[in-house]
């Protein structure tokens, strides 16, 4: 066997960001596993990235002072440490190019591995004579006003002792070189220990922190597991052990973080007890402290930055607090201490935080993302609403109402703000007054007795027109600038008008007025204010029929292009109406039915605003993309897609595409368990299918499809608008008004832009990934483009995400993951497994997901790129021109939810395997195994978009962990299941599938009817069992492991039969060989032999989590011991097998749970990915000869 030895070359890693430090206000250093990266925050550009070595994990970055090399070049000495290793590096920044971004290079100076204990802090030390005066250096990003180099490094260890190492030489004269070569490990003995001391308290620390930068003045603060913080002087008078000078006692849990204030007069501690405490240590005996609660989980770190405290926590937020040292101590413990809570990271924990002098806070998440926030947004956000409130009193009534006396009761009935300088008021007496807000002068616009005692006022968006709704059902329409004579419409039944909406019409002088009357009816008017003419006309076009029980309309939008009116109601429904074209000839007012009724768009809260946007030619197949946005009083905004409108995307084309790389949530609300997502989408389809007259004429179906809902505030969202192409949201929280920029994820404040994107680095899953699967066999979307590398992943964060892997190509580009889709199908349901399937359309795929509470869903995934896109050629490392990977747009739409079949709702779906049978192109068979020992095969039929139970069996009497299938070349389908008892069962499901297809085809129509009625409503249906086939017992069962089978890979190797390679919780790797005989007449598979032929009980140091075969002779395994191992597999002629280890390496993904591989067409070698907490990618390359 020609077995080329290959090796796994790590090519990409996403894992928690644990360290952040600013070099200056624009360059941010970040540490992620062994990778150190420099990023320009103004442009989000990566300036440089180096790998520190395989067993490195960066915990902290500690900056030293700047060394100026020339006018435009500066160097910065810094060190990074992690676990027991420390490295000294230099960052060289060249700003000589005026047009280009600065260049940044890393230079390794010394690599010091293997210190005797875990490092909790490290500090640069200078000669005391070189440091003029006081130097605050507690925050590493501050630029020290020192020109001389540091001489030594102080290291604080987890066993509460400190060592001071002298640098072997002055670092400044070392020539600035930019070599990417890793230095060999420096011998620890090159670094002289000049001082060493143990604290008198022998204990283990989670955290510690130095203060001051000379050995003489050096202090250490120890955070202990017994809730005390200990302050001690490193360089003390004598004796072997240093005495504790101050004990800070008060916390009720382990200390996780400790920091000094810059002046050393205060210490900040954070703890397991969820509190932050600030200790005033100026008084020698009487130490006082303030306590700050607010984080909802453990707090990891907190620093004192001027007037603020900035803390990060396990609750994934970063909070900003008022610095209690600057306020009256008596006010402390006050809830108003917390000024902001920034929640942008997904899942668990924010790990790193750094603050620039410009007040840009960078946070690094457990999700591998880096977020930027602005401290100045707090200043604006905390401005007290009352301070900005102006009381406006009406002028004396006699000044505008000649007949009035001072005794007449007069007050404002309603008002609108028409421009920045002007507002309009309707009064109880029936006046409409205009106020010039600059000059504070009043003028009368109109008077009518119709407006007496009641009016509901609204203005057009342009502010030129004000419409008042009357008690009598009439509308009073006035021009603020007197462009036309005031107009009063007919009475129309005399019903009080409660709300008026003045919507833009076809042009500047055309408007649609929508009124909501007290009897819950809605009227639509067409208002024309032709230029120059002194009269305006207003025609009642039609009435709109609301669904029964509708309470009130709170939002309206008119689309002149499609002649549609959209309404949003108080009971969370969005309605669409198609207006009739010509209305002049129609005598009687018609009442139109809605063509769309989409319920529960904002939980059960009011829809507060609605907006429609058409992007021409941006949709699938060059059609227009029509999006709808709504805001709600549930604090979220929802995005929808309109399908089937003239010129727009249709239902047949790729259904939904969403190219935004943003947090999107589906039903991520406070709703109870089974959010009606699915029924919401379905009801849209439903309504669409029975849509109105003119649709039937044009033969198209109009659908409003909810794409996602994203909750951004605990208060209300009131308005959505688009300004300069960016989506802005206006809302209220805590009696304060805010405007939120959705695309940048922060509140709008005055001031220049300091950074382009609030997301400096895209995030991955915030919690453990349980399964990831590459989309094998994807097609390039346009000719000449490389095959896109797409994978789907899901896990403990209950999210379904789809990413595109964009490989490293040139010297200056970085391998990247682009997030294409981020959905939360339901709250509290872990996604355990997912599998792709294929449709006849090369740009549309199906994805099946399974997980907790027995949930299984089918998704349609469609891909597109902008129609204007042309393939770009770029130069690769070796100078060849190659086509660039283009980020795709991708839409993911839920097609169906599988009915449940277990007695127990807590049952988890543990694994899936999906296949299609020849001759049934639209039928997808999904084999699923359950935690209650059930084994089921479901049919997902594309024709009716629903699941039908095909085979139901139970075996193992244990939680089943793995399922796999094999379609044999000669015929028949084998299924493999494996459980926590270590056994692998082999099933012949050919006959059961045949029998099912016989009964199913006869009943397909009935099934489709049943499914369509089943998909509406909040209750998940129980599975129908009309077609279900029993399975009996497995053909054979093999005992391969002592306990759970976590990885199973089955391959048909032709004449050599079938090979099943499995990895277990028992650390063992096992090979089972199976021989089968196909009986074409009976259509059965007979298993002639099945035997576990090889077992390596010590394959890994811990449980094997996943096994894949990258070809017939090479196997890759990964384990809880955080290694990836490649094995050679030899199938022996006597029916046995042998495996030998080819290579093993450490991986940077803790808790690895899943592994997959994809063959990349453009390359000769496969790509392997392992995911757990984060993900790491490997190119399997031929080894260097």
């Amino acid at each position, binding site marked *: 066997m020609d077995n080329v030895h290959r090796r796994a070359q790590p090519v990409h890693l996403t894992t928690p960001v644990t360290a952040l430090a600013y070099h200056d206000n624009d360059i941010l250093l970040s540490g992620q596993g062994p990778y150190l990266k420099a990023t320009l925050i103004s442009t989000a550009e990566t300036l440089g990235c180096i790998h520190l070595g395989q067993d490195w994990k960066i915990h902290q970055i500690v900056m030293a002072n700047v060394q100026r090399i020339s006018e435009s070049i500066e160097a910065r000495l810094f060190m990074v440490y992690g*676990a027991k290793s420390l490295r000294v590096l230099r960052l060289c920044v060249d700003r000589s190019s005026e047009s280009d971004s600065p260049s940044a290079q890393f230079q390794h100076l010394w690599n010091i591995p293997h210190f005797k204990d875990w490092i909790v802090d490290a500090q640069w030390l200078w000669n005391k004579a070189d440091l003029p005066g006081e130097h605050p250096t507690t925050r590493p990003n501050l630029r020290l006003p020192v020109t001389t180099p540091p001489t030594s490094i102080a290291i604080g260890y987890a066993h509460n002792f400190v060592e001071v190492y002298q640098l072997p030489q002055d670092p400044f004269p070392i020539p600035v070189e930019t070599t990417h070569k890793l230095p060999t490990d420096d011998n620890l003995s090159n670094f002289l220990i000049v001082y060493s001391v143990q604290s008198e308290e022998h204990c*283990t620390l989670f955290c510690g922190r130095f203060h001051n930068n000379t050995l003489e003045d050096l202090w250490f603060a120890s955070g202990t597991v017994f809730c005390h913080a200990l302050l001690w002087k490193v360089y003390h008078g004598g004796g072997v052990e240093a005495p504790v000078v101050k004990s800070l006692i008060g916390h009720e849990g382990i200390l996780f973080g400790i920091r000094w204030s810059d002046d050393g007069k205060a210490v900040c501690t954070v703890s397991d007890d969820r509190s932050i405490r600030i200790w005033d240590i100026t008084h020698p005996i009487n130490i006082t402290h303030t306590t700050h*609660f607010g984080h909802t989980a453990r707090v990891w770190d907190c620093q004192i930055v001027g007037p603020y405290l900035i803390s990060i926590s396990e609750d994934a937020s970063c909070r900003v607090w008022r610095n209690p040292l600057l306020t009256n101590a008596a006010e402390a413990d006050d809830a108003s201490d917390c000024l902001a809570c920034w929640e942008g990271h997904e899942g668990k924990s924010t790990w790193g935080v750094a603050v620039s002098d410009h007040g840009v806070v960078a946070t690094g998440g457990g999700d591998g993302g880096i977020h930027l926030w602005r401290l100045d947004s707090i200043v604006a956000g905390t401005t007290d609403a009352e301070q900005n409130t102006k009381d406006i009193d009406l002028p004396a009534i006699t000044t505008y109402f000649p007949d009035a006396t001072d005794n007449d009761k007069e007050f404002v009935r309603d008002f609108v703000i028409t421009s920045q300088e002007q507002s309009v008021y309707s009064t109880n007496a029936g006046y409409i007054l205009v106020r010039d807000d600059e000059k504070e002068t009043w003028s009368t616009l109109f008077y009518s007795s119709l407006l007496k005692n009641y009016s509901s006022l609204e203005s057009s968006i342009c502010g030129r027109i004000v419409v008042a709704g009357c008690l009598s059902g009439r509308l009073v329409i006035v021009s603020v600038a007197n462009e036309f004579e005031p107009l009063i419409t007919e009475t129309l039944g005399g019903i009080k008008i409660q709300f008026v909406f003045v919507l833009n019409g076809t042009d500047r002088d055309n408007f649609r007025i929508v009124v909501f009357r007290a009897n819950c009816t809605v009227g639509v008017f067409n208002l024309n204010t032709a230029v120059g003419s002194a009269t305006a006309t207003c025609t009642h076009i039609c009435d709109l029929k609301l669904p029964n029980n509708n309470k009130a309309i709170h939002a309206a939008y008119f689309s002149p292009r499609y002649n549609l009116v959209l309404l949003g109601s108080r009971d969370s429904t969005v309605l669409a109406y198609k207006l009739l074209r010509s209305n002049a000839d129609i005598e009687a007012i018609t009442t139109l039915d809605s063509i769309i009724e989409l319920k529960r768009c904002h939980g059960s809260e009011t829809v507060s605003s609605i907006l429609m946007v058409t992007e021409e030619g941006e949709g699938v197949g060059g059609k227009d993309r029509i999006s709808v946005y709504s805001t709600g009083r549930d604090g979220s905004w929802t995005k929808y897609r309109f399908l089937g409108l003239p010129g727009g995307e249709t239902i047949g084309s790729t259904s939904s595409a969403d190219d935004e790389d943003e947090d999107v949530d589906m039903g991520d609300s406070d709703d109870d368990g089974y959010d009606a997502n699915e029924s919401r989408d379905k009801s849209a389809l439903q309504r669409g299918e029975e849509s109105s007259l003119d649709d039937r004429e044009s033969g198209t179906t109009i659908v409003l499809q909810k794409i996602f809902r994203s909750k951004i505030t605990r208060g209300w969202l009131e308005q959505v608008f688009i300004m300069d192409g960016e989506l802005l949201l206006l809302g209220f929280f805590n009696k304060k008004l805010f405007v939120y920029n959705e695309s940048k994820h922060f509140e709008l404040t005055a001031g220049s832009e300091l950074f382009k994107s609030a997301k400096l680095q895209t995030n991955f899953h915030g919690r453990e990934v349980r399964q990831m699967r590459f989309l094998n066999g994807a097609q390039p979307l346009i000719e000449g483009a490389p095959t896109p590398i797409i994978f789907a992943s899901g896990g403990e964060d209950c999210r379904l995400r789809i990413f595109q892997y964009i490989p490293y190509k040139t010297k200056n580009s970085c391998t990247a993951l682009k997030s294409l889709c981020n959905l939360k199908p339901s709250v509290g349901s872990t996604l355990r497994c997912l599998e792709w399937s294929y449709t006849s359309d090369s740009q549309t795929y199906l994805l099946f997901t399974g997980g907790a509470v027995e949930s299984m869903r089918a998704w349609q995934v469609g891909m597109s790129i902008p129609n204007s896109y042309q393939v770009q050629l770029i130069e690769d490392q070796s100078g060849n021109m190659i086509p660039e990977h283009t980020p795709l747009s991708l839409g993911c739409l839920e097609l169906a939810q599988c009915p449940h079949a277990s007695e127990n709702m807590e049952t988890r779906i543990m694994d899936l395997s999906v296949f299609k049978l020849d001759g049934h192109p639209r039928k997808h068979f999904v084999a699923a195994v359950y*935690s209650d020992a059930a084994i089921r095969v479901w049919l997902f039929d594309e024709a009716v978009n629903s699941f039908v139970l095909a085979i139901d069996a139970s075996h193992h009497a244990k939680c089943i962990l793995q399922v796999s299938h094999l379609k044999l070349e000669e015929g028949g389908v084998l299924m493999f299941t494996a459980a926590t008892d270590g056994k692998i069962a082999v099933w012949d499901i050919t006959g059961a599938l045949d029998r099912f297809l016989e009964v199913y085809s006869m009943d397909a129509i009935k099934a489709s009817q049943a499914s369509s009625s089943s998909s509406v409503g909040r209750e998940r249906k129980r599975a129908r069992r009309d077609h279900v086939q029993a399975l009996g017992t497995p053909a054979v069962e093999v005992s391969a492991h002592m306990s759970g089978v976590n990885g199973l890979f089955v391959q048909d190797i032709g004449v050599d039969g079938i090979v099943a390679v499995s990895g277990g919780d028992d650390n063992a790797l096992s090979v089972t060989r199976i021989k089968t005989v196909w009986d074409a007449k009976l259509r059965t598979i007979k298993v002639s032999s099945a035997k576990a032929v090889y077992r390596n009980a010590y394959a890994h140091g811990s449980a094997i989590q996943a096994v894949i075969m990258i070809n017939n002779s090479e196997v890759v395994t990964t384990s809880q011991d955080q290694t990836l191992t490649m094995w050679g597999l030899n199938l022996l002629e006597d029916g046995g097998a042998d495996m030998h280890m080819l290579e093993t*390496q450490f991986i940077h993904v803790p808790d690895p749970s899943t592994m997959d591989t994809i063959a990349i067409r453009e390359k000769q070698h496969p790509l392997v990915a392992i995911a757990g907490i984060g993900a790491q990618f490997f190119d399997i390359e031929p080894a260097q000869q």
Partner: protein
Amino acid sequence: MGKSSKDKRDVYYRMAKEQGWRARSAFKLMQVDEEFNLLEGVTKAVDLCAAPGSWSQVLSKKLVENQKEREEAKIVAVDLQAMAPLPGVIQLQGDITKQSTADQIISYFDGEMADIVVCDGAPDVTGLHDMDEYIQAQLLLAALNITTHVLRPGGSFVAKIFRGKDITLLYTQLKVFFPKVTCSKPRSSRNSSIEAFIVCQDYTPPKDYVPNMGNPLLDLAPTDAQGNSNRTIVPFIACGDLSGFDSDMTYALPDSGNNEDYKVLDPVQMPITAPYLSAMEKKRKGFFNEQMSKK
């Protein structure tokens, strides 16, 4: 999600409540004991990191059975947290990494030695895996250190371990003191859990070894990048009856189909203290609702 959902998801959780154990982990020690017969004839035991006390409960039950006429059973249970009292168990609140705690344990044995030392302790897991593994290793080494003070030669040591990346280094160190080291996974421990139990038998300290709490014992060597070529191999044994309950399996409740009638038992012993109690108290008073700032 109903109140009984955890009962449905976890059969051992339900059984622990039914049988009066303070935690489901009681089954883990019993299953390890079934496999290794560790508690046979044992009368003196130390339970390190004992709270909430389920292992002490198991020890107490077994050791009272073993009690001979002149030799009374003695169990010393130590934990950082306070623990509700258990009859016949001497309780000690302290940090096992500190010398004073070791001295106190030793003092209870009046110069005698323990037959077995067990440790079901796990540190506060932060989520930073290498940090967590380091701290867990420190805890295990502290437990081992105390063990070298109090265990009689030939005695055994059982401790919870996380089977993470540095596990083989821990094996190496345990092998210095125990010729027989086995990694064991009881069936009551979930397949999905990284935990396992290290069973160390026949305590044989190296010649001239003097127990000393002063310096941290046997610190870990760094991870060998090339990994597994000459790592210490420790056999793995899955213990507990294969036909018994599976901790990963979802079982129907006893009177399934009629879930409304199912009576959910309260835990046998609620934790009596936790670091987050003050925070919880504030939460109950509505502090967090008012205080959560924007978004």
